[in-house]
């Protein structure tokens, strides 16, 4: 078909016309091959400007349009839509940037005009080769998978379920609640963590739109945005969830003990256990590794005493398949193992606690009934709080963990409130950036806490009296201090879960250098991942406090709700396509693609590459590695790009 190209040059007031001789560019456009109409206008993006183009398309039968104006990042879509309104496929349009990349950065009128002419020439040559592309859509399954039952997962699940969409909430542990349920009071308001979280946990348990899959793990994910298939392994609890009433008799009768995860090792739990009183679901679980029945075939005390006959040693893991349209990952964090800094003596000397251990200690329901006690049962007379354990440190984790300064201050406050202890707080920089945080810092300062600005180098114990000697520099006075205390509380870094790599692989998302999940854009798209339909929230994306976690969870939920609300997804049109007559089936494209879009398949007995159009993002790297030239990218074909390169290079 004959090309009938219309070229329109925008003055953009004086923004372009001030530097570029628009009349000359228009005249020049008229000399180019296949150009049938060439005009200029003061503001082409205005309604009148757009009407001008639409009218020409209809009246002059234009089948290609070029606008030379501002950046395509600004108005390409505007003019594509205008073309579409006039019945022209939007991909038969090309945009030349003669403002941001010509009239604004250049001053010489003649040279700028020359450059504008080259840019228009390139656009006209390129548009000659443009092909109409079909805009495809696919439906979105409204069901959602939320992975992780901490505060982030709980919040996201509730937000979505409250919109009456089905949510599968998968939690690896026997109960939801995550790290937050282990915390005592939350900074800076000091409201009790349990008190604010348990209502939400109960809501999850009772929500008609939430299907809670606790003690379960995601095994496999396939499909793509709008249509994921997920295999979830529901681990055997050896207790029938539907029968167990959570009465706890089995726990009392079970003779086998180990350290309680919930109590951070400060107390014991049994081989059959409910992790904590407010557990959701409130059912018992048998720890197969600890239970002696699984080792020797004897005991079964729990089974004997269970009135509901809920104990079931014959249970096996089950695999459940669910179909969802979108996924939120909220898998949380691990805590840095303080043993990796042996100079701090954790695990070597008594009375050196981690933050989480201290949380359990001050918790009224905790193992000490909320009292701060030394190993010998006495209250400490002096306590040091050590910031930045494993964070802001190249030898461990380079990033700032963001919450430690504030929970460190909280510990100082609690110590002043609960004990008579002298409190020393060793910090590098005090980061109190959130709402009410700086005020809290001031409040704790007033309470008589000794702030020492320096990172602790080492902690040693005195063999005679068991006192702990904390060495740090007070960089303000320029002296090395040896602070003698009864108790040390370490503030260890929040780090990416040890299985992040595995999880990233399962969901086809990525990890940053710091180990956490990579967001699509650090500032402007912080809960999306590069994989459409998969979102991240909470500490799996990086250390953050509860308010930020909740905000992020709701943000992820809102992203999911927009997907559901629209009900369909627009597929990228400018994607890879295979010329099957040239394809060798070598699989280079398959190897190079990060999104698993190409796949070599047998077609009529010949191995050829096939593009999954819902996965392809159109990055074009497959076409570069294709040895036969069979792979090309729609709207960025070799011919289109080369014609532009040639046009720009010519004099």
């Amino acid at each position, binding site marked *: 078909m004959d090309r009938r190209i219309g070229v329109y040059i925008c003055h953009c007031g004086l923004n372009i016309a001030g530097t570029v001789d628009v009349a000359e560019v228009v005249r020049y456009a008229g000399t180019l091959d296949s150009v049938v109409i060439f005009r200029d206008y003061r503001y082409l993006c205005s309604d009148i400007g757009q009407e001008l183009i639409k009218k020409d398309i209809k009246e002059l039968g234009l089948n290609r349009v070029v606008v030379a104006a501002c950046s395509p990042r600004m108005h390409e879509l505007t003019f594509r839509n205008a073309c579409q309104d006039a019945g022209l496929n939007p991909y038969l349009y090309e945009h030349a940037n003669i403002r941001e990349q010509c009239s604004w950065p250049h001053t010489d009128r003649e040279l700028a005009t020359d450059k504008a002419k080259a840019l228009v020439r390139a656009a006209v040559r390129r548009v000659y080769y443009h092909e109409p592309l079909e805009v495809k859509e696919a439906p979105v399954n409204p069901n959602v998978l939320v992975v992780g039952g901490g505060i982030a997962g709980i919040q996201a699940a509730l937000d979505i379920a409250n919109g009456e969409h089905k949510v599968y909430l998968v939690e690896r542990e026997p109960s939801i609640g995550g790290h937050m349920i282990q915390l005592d009071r939350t900074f800076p308001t000091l409201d009790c963590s349990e008190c604010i979280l348990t209502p939400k946990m109960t809501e999850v348990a009772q929500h008609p739109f939430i299907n809670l899959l606790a003690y379960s793990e995601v095994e496999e994910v396939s499909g793509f945005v709008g249509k994921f298939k997920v295999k979830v392994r529901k681990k055997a609890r050896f207790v029938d969830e539907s029968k167990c009433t959570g009465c706890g008799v089995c726990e009392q009768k079970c003779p086998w003990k180990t350290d309680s995860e919930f109590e951070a090792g400060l107390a014991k739990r049994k081989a059959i256990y409910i992790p904590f009183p407010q557990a959701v679901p409130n059912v018992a679980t048998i720890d197969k590794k600890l239970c002696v029945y699984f080792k020797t075939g004897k005991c079964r005390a729990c089974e004997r005493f269970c009135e509901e006959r809920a104990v079931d040693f014959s249970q096996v893991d089950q695999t459940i398949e669910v179909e969802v349209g979108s996924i939120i990952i909220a898998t949380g964090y691990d805590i840095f193992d303080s043993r990796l*800094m*042996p*100079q701090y003596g954790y695990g070597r000397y008594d009375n050196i606690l981690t933050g989480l251990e201290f949380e359990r200690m001050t918790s009224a329901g905790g193992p000490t009934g909320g009292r701060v006690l030394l190993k010998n049962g006495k209250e400490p007379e002096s306590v040091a709080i050590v910031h930045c354990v494993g964070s802001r440190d190249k030898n461990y984790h380079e990033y700032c963990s963001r919450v430690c300064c504030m929970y460190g201050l909280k510990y100082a406050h609690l110590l002043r409130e609960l004990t008579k202890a002298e409190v020393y707080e060793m910090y590098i920089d005090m980061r109190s950036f959130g709402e009410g945080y700086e005020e809290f810092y001031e409040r704790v300062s007033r309470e008589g806490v000794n702030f020492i600005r320096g990172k602790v180098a*080492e902690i040693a*114990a*005195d*063999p005679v009296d068991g006192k702990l000697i904390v060495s740090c520099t007070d960089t303000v006075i320029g002296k090395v201090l040896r602070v003698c205390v009864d108790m040390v509380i370490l503030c260890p870094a929040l780090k990416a879960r040890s299985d992040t790599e595995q999880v990233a692989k399962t969901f086809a998302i990525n990890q940053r250098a710091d180990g956490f999940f990579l967001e699509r854009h650090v500032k402007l798209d912080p809960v999306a991942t590069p994989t459409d339909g998969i979102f991240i929230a909470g500490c799996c994306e990086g250390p953050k406090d509860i308010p930020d976690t909740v905000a992020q969870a709701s943000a992820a939920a809102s992203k999911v709700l927009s997907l559901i609300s629209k009900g369909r997804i627009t597929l990228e049109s400018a994607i890879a396509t295979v010329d099957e007559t040239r394809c060798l089936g070598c699989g280079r494209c398959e190897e190079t693609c990060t999104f698993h879009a190409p796949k070599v398949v047998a077609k009529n007995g010949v191995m050829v590459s096939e593009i999954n159009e819902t996965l392809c993002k159109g990055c074009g790297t497959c076409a570069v590695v294709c040895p036969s030239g069979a792979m090309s990218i729609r709207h960025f074909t070799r011919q289109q790009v080369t014609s532009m390169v040639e046009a720009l290079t010519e004099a």
Partner: protein
Amino acid sequence: MELSYYPGCTLKTRAKNFEDSAIASMAALGINLKEFPRWNCCGAVYSLADDDLIHQLAPVRDLIRVKEQGQGKVVVLCSLCFNTLKRANLLMRNDAEKRGTLNSFMDEEVDYNGEVEVVHLLEVLRDDIGWKTISDRLKVPLKHLKLAPYYGCTLLRPQEVAIDQVERPTILHQLLQALGAEPIDFPFAAKCCGSFQVVGNREVALESAWNILSSVVSWQAEALVLSCPLCDFNLAGKQEELKQKYREFKGIPTLYFTQLLALALGLDSKICRFELNYQDPQPLLESKGLL
């Protein structure tokens, strides 16, 4: 088995007790430590300046001597020599530019690319022989002996030469355990003894030594176990002066780990040359029935 061995200057003089007990013990364990010919002083400390290559020549020449012998590995006893040789070796292995300069400067020597592996005797005991073999060969288990294993700096720092975990080493503890003794876990095991400062800043070195010794005493060790002749001078050789300065200090016997190894393997105690120990451990050993 024969292993190429680098003694260094002090093991041939003041620390003959260290060398003799090591060679005899290793022979008893089936390893012949063979001193390679024409070795020279390694320079004692590794040069930390980027623009100073001249001081790398000495250790590199030693490594060339080892290579000439057709040996792939050299065993070092002295901690300082170990550090200097191993760091120089890593430099030759990893820094192509400096390697080129040094090789072309020493045009009379064969080119050296860091082929030799520098190991400390403790590594040979742990990795080549193994604690279990040592335990199995014990003739005189060092029962009821509470010992403070002291590592000092140069076996552990920097990270790339460390023979064990930098902040909480256990290799000496493990050896002492294999010998039947009770190693204690005291916090100053890897603190600097004051090193060469004993020449230019004597009081400072003494104070550093005191920090360590007082900790050893308070953790109730019966003797201090050493692995370096410089530490030996500061921590054992200076005890008399410290006793005068700190009246409460009664002194503590010191030994090289190799002397304990020789004893536990049932070798003649003469080989230990206890007369060279600054602090005589014999009364303690006798009281435990080990002599």
